[in-house]
């Protein structure tokens, strides 16, 4: 009992205070590399003996970023820029920024000139994944990242280290997925807020450390009887769903989160790196090719609706909550299509706006309550 509470608290603390986690690693003499949302080759950082650290914004007033980004740039990038400019990320040896959407393209340049104390490493993922040439191209992008990492930090990797890292990351993926499934049988303990903290904390730990804590949590949960959740169940979709005030509204309305299609959470852990098929870099590139169901990764057919319907059926969810990151245009293109699909399948959905600079949550509370009254 104590272990479970302790483990969850540990992850909770890390999720609430990532700065403390960063300092924890820096004190150990480790180098830490900031990894921008949504996808970066963390494995390369890890294999080079450094700690990848996720940068997904946070609640902060916007002042300095206004000199770089217009009001209609997405909320999470506004926060990342602000935090970078005001020195909240001091200690990071570098940041990796994926130019995966229009705003992120510009972020590479804004950071390059705005936060000169933390070197910027860009990566441009291929979007035409049907082209076999995309694999070699991505491998070369990885190699550029590695060159920049080693030039900046002096840390290098080798093939053996990368293969070890890949094993660690796959193990972590599997464990995260297992946690999500196990959590559904213990929704009394794994509330939406706790679930989110577990997922969020993954970005602030060396992955095998996180896996170890997760494993303990899962084992402990499994010793308990299955809890039959009396309230309603939903799937979350979008980029991210926070802060805790919003997650608490779900609890307030006896709504449990039984699955998610969030870039911040399950989208990271859906696809493993192939165990075979070539060297480490190649297999990492093949993993990219296999990713699916994300607004930021080009896919034909608008498959997210069908995926969400499947998820609702698999996890017994009554509806979908679309967590719309403010000003995220890739998500905005997907929304009408998955809404139509959900409508056809008779699955209710509601949209809440995720604005990291938001101060008042009353309207979101009303929406969630109303949705609960509807499903």
């Amino acid at each position, binding site marked *: 009992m104590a272990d479970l509470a302790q483990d969850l608290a540990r992850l909770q603390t890390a999720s609430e205070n990532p700065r403390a986690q960063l300092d924890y690693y820096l004190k150990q003499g480790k180098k830490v590399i900031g990894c921008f949302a949504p996808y970066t080759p963390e494995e390369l950082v890890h294999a080079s003996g450094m700690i990848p650290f996720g940068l997904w914004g946070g609640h902060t007033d916007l002042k300095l970023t206004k000199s770089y980004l217009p009001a209609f740039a997405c909320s999470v990038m506004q926060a990342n820029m602000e935090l970078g400019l005001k020195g909240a990320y001091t200690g990071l040896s570098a940041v990796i920024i994926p130019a995966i959407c229009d705003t992120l393209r510009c972020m590479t340049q804004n950071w390059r000139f705005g936060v000169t104390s933390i070197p910027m490493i860009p990566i441009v993922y291929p979007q035409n994944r049907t082209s076999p040439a995309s694999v070699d191209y991505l491998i070369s992008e990885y190699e550029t990242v590695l060159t920049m990492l080693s030039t900046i930090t002096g840390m290098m990797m080798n093939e053996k280290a990368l293969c070890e890292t890949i094993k660690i990351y796959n193990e972590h993926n599997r464990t995260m997925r297992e946690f999500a499934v196990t959590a559904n049988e213990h929704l009394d303990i794994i509330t939406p807020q706790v679930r989110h903290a577990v997922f969020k904390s993954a970005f602030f730990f060396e992955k095998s450390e996180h896996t170890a804590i997760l494993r303990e949590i899962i084992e402990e949960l499994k010793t308990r009887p299955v809890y039959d959740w009396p309230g309603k169940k939903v799937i979350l979709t979008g980029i991210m769903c926070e802060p805790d005030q919003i997650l608490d509204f779900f609890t307030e309305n006896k709504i449990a989160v039984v699955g998610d299609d969030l870039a911040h959470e399950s989208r990271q852990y859906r696809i493993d790196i192939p165990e075979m098929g070539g060297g480490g870099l190649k297999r990492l590139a093949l993993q990219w090719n296999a990713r699916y169901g994300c607004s930021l990764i080009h896919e034909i057919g608008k498959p997210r609706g069908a995926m969400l319907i499947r998820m609702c059926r698999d996890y017994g969810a009554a509806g979908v909550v679309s967590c719309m990151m403010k000003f995220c245009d890739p998500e905005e293109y997907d929304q009408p299509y998955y809404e139509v699909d959900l409508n056809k399948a008779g699955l*209710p959905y509601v949209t809440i*706006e995720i604005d990291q600079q938001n101060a008042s949550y*009353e*309207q979101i*509370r*009303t*929406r969630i*309550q*109303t949705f609960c*009254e*509807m499903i």
Partner: protein
Amino acid sequence: MYTLGIDIGSTSSKAAILQDGKMIVGRSVVSLGTGTIGPEQALRQVFFESGLSQSDMDCIIVTGYGRMSCEYADGQVSELSCHARGIHFLLPDVRTIIDIGGQDAKALKISEQGQLIAFQMNDKCAAGTGRFLDVMAKVLNVDICELGPLSEHAQNPVTISNTCTVFAESEVISQLSSKTAIEDIAAGIHNSVAKRVAGMVMRLGRPSAVAMSGGVALNIGIVHAMERELGCPVQVHRFCQSAGAIGAAIFAWEKSLEKKV
């Protein structure tokens, strides 16, 4: 059996008492909202009108912005659900409800039974809300309640194209300096609000059997502009301001039936 519904909004407080969930025996509207003496006044007035007291109430449900801090209620329901039920009570044929308030605008799609099926909300942007009209009324130097009737006398409504309230304000000022007739400007303002709201409504699908509620529903200019935008008639019930409170009273009645079972 008497049930009480209270709607504590940001700028007004409303209460309604239903007998057996079917007949309105008391109704009050006070222009003071959450955090003021408004809710208290609304209660006193509704008890006075009905000749009943709080102890006569089988169940009390509270809704509206201030619903979370109401201690004497037996429960709270969101204003969207309450509104849906309330308007359905007043106008049983309605299937789409448009509620334009002071700070936000909502569109509700309801079933034959008055259940909420889907909703759209604009709660971030002043354009398309009562706030927009307030700002423009000030610029035109007319009373907000004159704005609607004024717009009905337009000969050549102008277009206010900007959806940003700040920019739209400067458009209106520019029209005034060009000596455009104030009626035409007022009509342009109303059309702008209607257009913005209609866009939101259309996301629920083509509407039929539409009713408006909320403070702005009392503005005849907006009602007519909405009719033009949506291409269908828009009803406004004279008790529409109490829709939320009535709906809450209905939920209270359903809750007390459950208790008895």
